[in-house]
Protein backbone atom coordinates (compact mmCIF):
# COMPACT_ATOMS: atom_id res chain seq x y z
CA UNK A 1 0.00 0.00 0.00
CA UNK A 2 2.77 2.40 0.99
CA UNK A 3 4.75 1.45 -2.09
CA UNK A 4 1.64 1.90 -4.24
CA UNK A 5 1.21 5.46 -2.96
CA UNK A 6 4.91 6.10 -3.48
CA UNK A 7 4.68 4.91 -7.08
CA UNK A 8 1.60 7.06 -7.71
CA UNK A 9 3.32 10.07 -6.15
CA UNK A 10 6.34 9.62 -8.36
CA UNK A 11 4.27 9.06 -11.49
CA UNK A 12 2.25 12.21 -10.76
CA UNK A 13 5.34 14.36 -10.39
CA UNK A 14 6.47 15.26 -13.89
CA UNK A 15 9.50 17.07 -12.52
CA UNK A 16 10.77 13.90 -10.92
CA UNK A 17 9.78 11.78 -13.90
CA UNK A 18 11.51 14.21 -16.25
CA UNK A 19 14.89 13.22 -14.84
CA UNK A 20 14.03 9.55 -14.63
CA UNK A 21 14.59 7.06 -17.36
CA UNK A 22 12.18 4.51 -18.66
CA UNK A 23 12.15 1.49 -20.84
CA UNK A 24 9.42 -0.71 -22.18
CA UNK A 25 9.30 -3.93 -24.07
CA UNK A 26 8.43 -7.57 -24.19
CA UNK A 27 9.28 -10.09 -21.46
CA UNK A 28 8.48 -13.69 -22.47
CA UNK A 29 9.17 -16.46 -19.93
CA UNK A 30 9.01 -20.23 -20.19
CA UNK A 31 8.87 -22.16 -16.92
CA UNK A 32 9.27 -25.93 -17.07
CA UNK A 33 8.76 -27.71 -13.77
CA UNK A 34 9.88 -31.28 -13.37
CA UNK A 35 8.31 -33.14 -10.46
CA UNK A 36 10.53 -35.75 -8.83
CA UNK A 37 10.00 -38.23 -6.02
CA UNK A 38 9.87 -37.28 -2.34
CA UNK A 39 8.62 -33.74 -3.10
CA UNK A 40 11.79 -32.74 -4.99
CA UNK A 41 11.33 -30.58 -8.08
CA UNK A 42 13.47 -28.90 -10.70
CA UNK A 43 12.49 -25.63 -12.37
CA UNK A 44 14.03 -24.78 -15.74
CA UNK A 45 13.42 -21.20 -16.79
CA UNK A 46 14.13 -19.19 -19.90
CA UNK A 47 13.39 -15.48 -19.92
CA UNK A 48 14.21 -12.89 -22.54
CA UNK A 49 13.90 -9.11 -22.81
CA UNK A 50 13.11 -7.19 -25.98
CA UNK A 51 13.26 -3.39 -25.81
CA UNK A 52 10.58 -1.41 -27.66
CA UNK A 53 11.35 2.09 -26.32
CA UNK A 54 13.70 3.68 -23.80
CA UNK A 55 15.01 7.07 -22.78
CA UNK A 56 14.23 9.91 -20.38
CA UNK A 57 10.69 11.00 -19.58
CA UNK A 58 11.68 14.61 -20.35
CA UNK A 59 12.78 13.80 -23.87
CA UNK A 60 10.83 12.65 -26.93
CA UNK A 61 10.25 8.91 -26.96
CA UNK A 62 12.93 6.94 -28.67
CA UNK A 63 11.29 3.92 -30.22
CA UNK A 64 13.35 1.00 -31.32
CA UNK A 65 12.98 -2.73 -31.37
CA UNK A 66 16.03 -4.49 -30.02
CA UNK A 67 16.93 -7.72 -28.32
CA UNK A 68 18.34 -7.00 -24.85
CA UNK A 69 19.23 -10.16 -22.95
CA UNK A 70 18.30 -13.75 -22.08
CA UNK A 71 18.36 -15.59 -18.77
CA UNK A 72 18.61 -19.33 -18.35
CA UNK A 73 18.16 -20.77 -14.89
CA UNK A 74 17.83 -24.06 -13.07
CA UNK A 75 16.38 -24.23 -9.55
CA UNK A 76 16.20 -27.37 -7.43
CA UNK A 77 13.56 -27.29 -4.71
CA UNK A 78 12.20 -29.48 -1.95
CA UNK A 79 8.67 -29.11 -0.66
CA UNK A 80 8.38 -29.17 3.09
CA UNK A 81 5.19 -29.47 5.12
CA UNK A 82 3.11 -29.63 1.93
CA UNK A 83 2.95 -25.92 1.16
CA UNK A 84 6.43 -24.62 1.85
CA UNK A 85 9.52 -24.92 -0.29
CA UNK A 86 13.29 -24.47 -0.02
CA UNK A 87 15.28 -23.98 -3.20
CA UNK A 88 18.76 -23.42 -4.55
CA UNK A 89 19.45 -22.30 -8.09
CA UNK A 90 21.85 -21.01 -10.67
CA UNK A 91 21.20 -18.48 -13.43
CA UNK A 92 23.21 -17.44 -16.45
CA UNK A 93 22.52 -14.12 -18.15
CA UNK A 94 23.57 -13.49 -21.73
CA UNK A 95 23.92 -9.77 -22.57
CA UNK A 96 25.58 -9.28 -25.94
CA UNK A 97 28.91 -11.09 -25.76
CA UNK A 98 29.00 -10.77 -21.98
CA UNK A 99 27.86 -13.43 -19.55
CA UNK A 100 26.82 -12.92 -15.93
CA UNK A 101 26.15 -15.55 -13.29
CA UNK A 102 23.79 -15.67 -10.35
CA UNK A 103 23.34 -17.98 -7.39
CA UNK A 104 19.97 -17.92 -5.68
CA UNK A 105 18.41 -19.29 -2.52
CA UNK A 106 14.71 -19.08 -1.82
CA UNK A 107 12.00 -19.94 0.65
CA UNK A 108 8.39 -20.09 -0.51
CA UNK A 109 5.11 -20.62 1.25
CA UNK A 110 1.68 -20.84 -0.37
CA UNK A 111 -1.45 -20.45 1.73
CA UNK A 112 -4.80 -21.64 0.45
CA UNK A 113 -7.91 -19.68 1.38
CA UNK A 114 -11.52 -20.56 0.39
CA UNK A 115 -11.49 -18.33 -2.69
CA UNK A 116 -7.85 -17.35 -3.32
CA UNK A 117 -4.24 -18.37 -2.77
CA UNK A 118 -1.49 -16.28 -1.29
CA UNK A 119 2.17 -16.96 -1.98
CA UNK A 120 5.19 -15.60 -0.12
CA UNK A 121 8.69 -15.79 -1.53
CA UNK A 122 11.89 -14.70 0.15
CA UNK A 123 14.87 -14.90 -2.17
CA UNK A 124 18.54 -13.99 -1.82
CA UNK A 125 20.78 -13.83 -4.87
CA UNK A 126 24.39 -13.01 -5.68
CA UNK A 127 25.32 -11.91 -9.20
CA UNK A 128 28.77 -11.52 -10.72
CA UNK A 129 30.40 -11.14 -14.11
CA UNK A 130 33.71 -10.23 -15.72
CA UNK A 131 32.96 -6.51 -16.22
CA UNK A 132 30.58 -5.58 -13.36
CA UNK A 133 30.93 -5.52 -9.59
CA UNK A 134 29.20 -8.26 -7.68
CA UNK A 135 25.60 -7.52 -6.64
CA UNK A 136 23.89 -8.92 -3.57
CA UNK A 137 20.10 -8.79 -3.39
CA UNK A 138 17.47 -9.71 -0.86
CA UNK A 139 13.90 -9.77 -2.12
CA UNK A 140 10.40 -10.47 -0.85
CA UNK A 141 7.45 -11.19 -3.12
CA UNK A 142 3.78 -11.47 -2.27
CA UNK A 143 1.58 -13.22 -4.84
CA UNK A 144 -2.18 -13.38 -5.01
CA UNK A 145 -4.05 -15.81 -7.24
CA UNK A 146 -7.84 -15.37 -7.55
CA UNK A 147 -10.20 -17.41 -9.77
CA UNK A 148 -12.36 -15.22 -11.99
CA UNK A 149 -15.21 -17.74 -12.02
CA UNK A 150 -16.17 -19.45 -8.77
CA UNK A 151 -14.18 -20.57 -5.78
CA UNK A 152 -11.55 -22.55 -7.68
CA UNK A 153 -10.07 -22.27 -11.15
CA UNK A 154 -11.16 -25.06 -13.47
CA UNK A 155 -9.71 -26.03 -16.87
CA UNK A 156 -10.11 -23.37 -19.57
CA UNK A 157 -11.06 -20.71 -17.00
CA UNK A 158 -9.30 -17.43 -16.30
CA UNK A 159 -7.68 -16.25 -13.09
CA UNK A 160 -6.16 -13.01 -11.87
CA UNK A 161 -2.66 -12.94 -10.42
CA UNK A 162 -0.88 -10.08 -8.73
CA UNK A 163 2.80 -10.10 -7.78
CA UNK A 164 4.18 -7.37 -5.56
CA UNK A 165 7.89 -7.49 -4.83
CA UNK A 166 10.54 -5.49 -2.97
CA UNK A 167 14.18 -5.94 -3.94
CA UNK A 168 17.04 -4.53 -1.89
CA UNK A 169 20.37 -4.51 -3.72
CA UNK A 170 23.93 -3.83 -2.65
CA UNK A 171 26.53 -3.14 -5.35
CA UNK A 172 29.94 -1.59 -4.60
CA UNK A 173 28.64 -0.15 -1.29
CA UNK A 174 25.65 1.41 -3.09
CA UNK A 175 22.30 0.40 -1.70
CA UNK A 176 19.19 0.59 -3.86
CA UNK A 177 15.57 -0.45 -3.67
CA UNK A 178 13.39 -1.73 -6.47
CA UNK A 179 9.63 -2.23 -6.30
CA UNK A 180 7.70 -4.40 -8.73
CA UNK A 181 3.99 -4.64 -9.36
CA UNK A 182 2.81 -7.30 -11.77
CA UNK A 183 -0.94 -7.71 -12.44
CA UNK A 184 -1.67 -10.58 -14.80
CA UNK A 185 -4.53 -12.52 -16.34
CA UNK A 186 -3.96 -16.26 -16.51
CA UNK A 187 -5.53 -19.00 -18.57
CA UNK A 188 -5.74 -22.25 -16.62
CA UNK A 189 -5.54 -24.92 -19.33
CA UNK A 190 -4.85 -27.70 -16.83
CA UNK A 191 -3.22 -27.76 -13.40
CA UNK A 192 0.08 -28.44 -15.18
CA UNK A 193 -0.32 -26.02 -18.06
CA UNK A 194 -0.95 -22.30 -17.54
CA UNK A 195 -0.53 -19.18 -19.66
CA UNK A 196 -0.31 -15.68 -18.16
CA UNK A 197 -0.01 -12.23 -19.59
CA UNK A 198 0.04 -8.73 -18.13
CA UNK A 199 2.09 -5.71 -17.18
CA UNK A 200 5.37 -6.19 -15.34
CA UNK A 201 6.10 -2.77 -13.84
CA UNK A 202 9.47 -2.17 -12.13
CA UNK A 203 10.53 0.96 -10.29
CA UNK A 204 14.28 0.70 -9.84
CA UNK A 205 16.51 2.87 -7.60
CA UNK A 206 13.50 4.23 -5.72
CA UNK A 207 14.01 7.81 -4.50
CA UNK A 208 17.21 8.34 -6.47
CA UNK A 209 17.79 10.85 -9.28
CA UNK A 210 18.73 7.86 -11.44
CA UNK A 211 15.40 6.10 -10.95
CA UNK A 212 14.21 3.94 -13.78
CA UNK A 213 10.68 2.82 -14.62
CA UNK A 214 10.34 -0.35 -16.66
CA UNK A 215 7.11 -1.40 -18.32
CA UNK A 216 7.28 -4.92 -19.66
CA UNK A 217 4.52 -6.75 -21.40
CA UNK A 218 5.04 -10.14 -19.82
CA UNK A 219 3.92 -13.47 -21.28
CA UNK A 220 4.52 -16.50 -19.03
CA UNK A 221 4.06 -20.15 -19.79
CA UNK A 222 4.14 -22.67 -16.91
CA UNK A 223 4.32 -26.35 -17.76
CA UNK A 224 4.80 -29.16 -15.24
CA UNK A 225 5.70 -32.75 -15.97
CA UNK A 226 7.03 -35.91 -14.34
CA UNK A 227 6.17 -38.08 -11.34
Amino acid at each position, binding site marked *: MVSGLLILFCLASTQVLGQNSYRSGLLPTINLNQKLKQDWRINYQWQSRWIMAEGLFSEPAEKRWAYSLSDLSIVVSKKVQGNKGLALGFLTRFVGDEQRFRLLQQY*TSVEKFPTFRLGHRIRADQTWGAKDAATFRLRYRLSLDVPLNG*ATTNPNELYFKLNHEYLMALESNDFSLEIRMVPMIGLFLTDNNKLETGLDYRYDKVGSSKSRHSFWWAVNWYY*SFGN
Partner: protein
Amino acid sequence: MRAFLILSIFLSSTASLLAQVKYEKEYRIKGEQVPTEAKAFIDKLTFQRSIKWYKEESLTATTYEAKTKRNGQKYSIEFDSTGLIEDIEIQIKWVSIGEAVRASMDQALSRAYKKYRLIKIQRQWTGSAEDLVQAVQARSAGEQIQLRYEIIIKGKSETGWQWYEITFSDTGKLLSSKRIILRNTDNLEY
Protein backbone atom coordinates in the same frame (compact mmCIF):
# COMPACT_ATOMS: atom_id res chain seq x y z
CA MET B 1 -25.84 -53.76 6.14
CA ARG B 2 -23.99 -55.77 8.80
CA ALA B 3 -21.28 -56.69 6.31
CA PHE B 4 -20.92 -53.02 5.42
CA LEU B 5 -20.55 -52.05 9.09
CA ILE B 6 -17.91 -54.72 9.70
CA LEU B 7 -16.06 -53.55 6.63
CA SER B 8 -16.26 -49.92 7.78
CA ILE B 9 -14.91 -50.78 11.24
CA PHE B 10 -12.08 -52.84 9.75
CA LEU B 11 -11.11 -50.10 7.35
CA SER B 12 -11.35 -47.30 9.88
CA SER B 13 -8.66 -48.94 11.97
CA THR B 14 -6.09 -48.09 9.33
CA ALA B 15 -6.32 -44.60 7.91
CA SER B 16 -3.87 -45.31 5.14
CA LEU B 17 -6.03 -48.12 3.82
CA LEU B 18 -9.00 -45.81 3.68
CA ALA B 19 -7.16 -42.92 2.11
CA GLN B 20 -8.97 -41.94 -1.06
CA VAL B 21 -8.44 -39.02 -3.33
CA LYS B 22 -10.77 -36.05 -3.17
CA TYR B 23 -11.39 -34.40 -6.54
CA GLU B 24 -13.84 -31.54 -6.58
CA LYS B 25 -14.78 -28.83 -8.99
CA GLU B 26 -16.53 -26.01 -7.16
CA TYR B 27 -17.85 -22.87 -8.76
CA ARG B 28 -20.02 -19.96 -7.76
CA ILE B 29 -23.62 -19.83 -9.04
CA LYS B 30 -26.49 -17.41 -8.72
CA GLY B 31 -29.45 -18.02 -6.40
CA GLU B 32 -31.74 -18.53 -9.42
CA GLN B 33 -29.71 -21.57 -10.46
CA VAL B 34 -30.31 -23.36 -7.15
CA PRO B 35 -33.11 -25.99 -6.76
CA THR B 36 -36.19 -24.46 -5.06
CA GLU B 37 -36.09 -27.05 -2.22
CA ALA B 38 -32.63 -25.85 -1.22
CA LYS B 39 -33.60 -22.19 -1.32
CA ALA B 40 -36.73 -22.90 0.76
CA PHE B 41 -34.60 -24.61 3.42
CA ILE B 42 -32.19 -21.67 3.63
CA ASP B 43 -35.12 -19.21 3.92
CA LYS B 44 -36.29 -21.07 7.06
CA LEU B 45 -32.93 -20.46 8.76
CA THR B 46 -33.25 -16.66 8.47
CA PHE B 47 -29.55 -15.91 8.18
CA GLN B 48 -28.76 -12.20 8.50
CA ARG B 49 -25.71 -12.33 6.25
CA SER B 50 -25.93 -12.84 2.50
CA ILE B 51 -25.76 -16.39 1.14
CA LYS B 52 -23.14 -17.43 -1.39
CA TRP B 53 -24.15 -20.38 -3.54
CA TYR B 54 -21.76 -22.89 -5.06
CA LYS B 55 -22.17 -25.94 -7.26
CA GLU B 56 -19.78 -28.78 -6.55
CA GLU B 57 -19.00 -31.56 -9.00
CA SER B 58 -17.04 -34.54 -7.74
CA LEU B 59 -16.30 -37.88 -9.36
CA THR B 60 -19.50 -39.36 -7.96
CA ALA B 61 -22.07 -36.60 -7.47
CA THR B 62 -23.22 -33.05 -8.05
CA THR B 63 -24.16 -31.03 -4.99
CA TYR B 64 -25.15 -27.48 -4.09
CA GLU B 65 -23.63 -25.59 -1.18
CA ALA B 66 -24.76 -22.44 0.61
CA LYS B 67 -22.09 -20.56 2.56
CA THR B 68 -22.71 -17.84 5.12
CA LYS B 69 -21.75 -16.63 8.60
CA ARG B 70 -23.70 -16.35 11.84
CA ASN B 71 -22.30 -15.02 15.12
CA GLY B 72 -18.79 -15.16 13.70
CA GLN B 73 -19.08 -18.84 12.74
CA LYS B 74 -18.87 -20.03 9.15
CA TYR B 75 -21.79 -22.19 8.01
CA SER B 76 -21.69 -24.46 5.01
CA ILE B 77 -24.99 -26.13 4.10
CA GLU B 78 -24.86 -28.90 1.52
CA PHE B 79 -27.72 -30.17 -0.67
CA ASP B 80 -27.97 -33.01 -3.17
CA SER B 81 -28.59 -32.44 -6.89
CA THR B 82 -32.36 -32.18 -6.31
CA GLY B 83 -32.03 -29.65 -3.48
CA LEU B 84 -32.57 -32.01 -0.50
CA ILE B 85 -30.51 -31.16 2.57
CA GLU B 86 -27.49 -33.44 3.12
CA ASP B 87 -25.69 -31.85 6.04
CA ILE B 88 -24.72 -28.65 7.80
CA GLU B 89 -21.09 -27.91 8.62
CA ILE B 90 -20.07 -25.26 11.12
CA GLN B 91 -16.46 -24.19 11.50
CA ILE B 92 -15.33 -24.48 15.11
CA LYS B 93 -12.18 -24.28 17.20
CA TRP B 94 -10.31 -27.40 18.33
CA VAL B 95 -10.73 -26.46 21.98
CA SER B 96 -14.51 -26.35 21.63
CA ILE B 97 -14.52 -30.14 21.18
CA GLY B 98 -14.78 -32.18 24.38
CA GLU B 99 -11.47 -33.25 25.91
CA ALA B 100 -12.11 -37.00 25.63
CA VAL B 101 -13.15 -36.70 21.97
CA ARG B 102 -10.10 -34.57 21.20
CA ALA B 103 -7.84 -37.13 22.85
CA SER B 104 -9.36 -39.92 20.77
CA MET B 105 -8.92 -37.92 17.54
CA ASP B 106 -5.34 -37.04 18.44
CA GLN B 107 -4.58 -40.70 19.09
CA ALA B 108 -6.01 -41.75 15.71
CA LEU B 109 -4.13 -39.01 13.85
CA SER B 110 -0.86 -39.74 15.65
CA ARG B 111 -1.22 -43.41 14.65
CA ALA B 112 -1.87 -42.55 10.99
CA TYR B 113 0.74 -39.82 10.53
CA LYS B 114 4.26 -39.16 11.78
CA LYS B 115 3.32 -35.50 12.26
CA TYR B 116 0.16 -33.57 11.61
CA ARG B 117 -1.18 -30.05 11.76
CA LEU B 118 -4.83 -29.01 11.99
CA ILE B 119 -5.99 -26.70 9.22
CA LYS B 120 -9.78 -26.54 9.58
CA ILE B 121 -12.27 -28.14 11.97
CA GLN B 122 -15.98 -28.41 11.25
CA ARG B 123 -18.87 -29.81 13.21
CA GLN B 124 -21.10 -31.76 10.81
CA TRP B 125 -24.81 -32.20 11.51
CA THR B 126 -26.96 -34.69 9.59
CA GLY B 127 -30.68 -35.26 10.13
CA SER B 128 -34.14 -34.42 8.89
CA ALA B 129 -34.77 -30.94 7.50
CA GLU B 130 -36.99 -30.02 10.49
CA ASP B 131 -34.45 -31.21 13.08
CA LEU B 132 -31.62 -29.36 11.34
CA VAL B 133 -33.61 -26.10 11.24
CA GLN B 134 -34.25 -26.45 14.98
CA ALA B 135 -30.59 -27.24 15.66
CA VAL B 136 -29.38 -24.16 13.76
CA GLN B 137 -31.88 -21.89 15.51
CA ALA B 138 -31.03 -23.33 18.94
CA ARG B 139 -27.28 -23.43 18.03
CA SER B 140 -27.22 -26.89 19.53
CA ALA B 141 -27.94 -30.36 18.15
CA GLY B 142 -30.65 -32.52 19.68
CA GLU B 143 -30.51 -36.31 19.96
CA GLN B 144 -32.08 -36.73 16.52
CA ILE B 145 -29.10 -35.08 14.87
CA GLN B 146 -26.09 -37.17 13.94
CA LEU B 147 -22.93 -35.33 14.97
CA ARG B 148 -19.61 -35.85 13.21
CA TYR B 149 -16.41 -33.86 12.85
CA GLU B 150 -14.85 -33.08 9.49
CA ILE B 151 -11.25 -32.03 9.82
CA ILE B 152 -8.70 -30.81 7.28
CA ILE B 153 -5.13 -31.59 8.25
CA LYS B 154 -1.63 -31.49 6.87
CA GLY B 155 -0.19 -34.92 7.61
CA LYS B 156 3.28 -36.35 7.16
CA SER B 157 3.53 -39.99 6.08
CA GLU B 158 6.11 -42.08 4.18
CA THR B 159 5.31 -40.14 0.98
CA GLY B 160 5.84 -36.72 2.60
CA TRP B 161 3.40 -34.03 3.62
CA GLN B 162 -0.09 -34.20 2.14
CA TRP B 163 -3.44 -32.59 2.92
CA TYR B 164 -6.32 -34.81 4.07
CA GLU B 165 -10.02 -34.47 4.80
CA ILE B 166 -10.82 -36.73 7.74
CA THR B 167 -14.20 -37.57 9.23
CA PHE B 168 -14.56 -38.53 12.90
CA SER B 169 -17.61 -39.80 14.77
CA ASP B 170 -19.05 -37.86 17.71
CA THR B 171 -16.84 -39.94 20.01
CA GLY B 172 -13.67 -39.20 18.04
CA LYS B 173 -13.46 -42.44 16.08
CA LEU B 174 -11.83 -42.11 12.67
CA LEU B 175 -14.41 -42.94 9.98
CA SER B 176 -12.83 -41.94 6.70
CA SER B 177 -9.85 -40.18 5.21
CA LYS B 178 -9.46 -38.61 1.76
CA ARG B 179 -6.28 -37.15 0.38
CA ILE B 180 -6.85 -33.67 -0.99
CA ILE B 181 -5.23 -32.95 -4.33
CA LEU B 182 -3.74 -29.48 -4.00
CA ARG B 183 -3.29 -27.28 -7.02
CA ASN B 184 0.12 -26.80 -8.52
CA THR B 185 1.88 -23.78 -7.00
CA ASP B 186 4.55 -23.27 -9.67
CA ASN B 187 3.12 -19.93 -10.85
CA LEU B 188 3.24 -18.54 -7.30
CA GLU B 189 6.83 -19.63 -6.72
CA TYR B 190 8.58 -18.72 -10.00
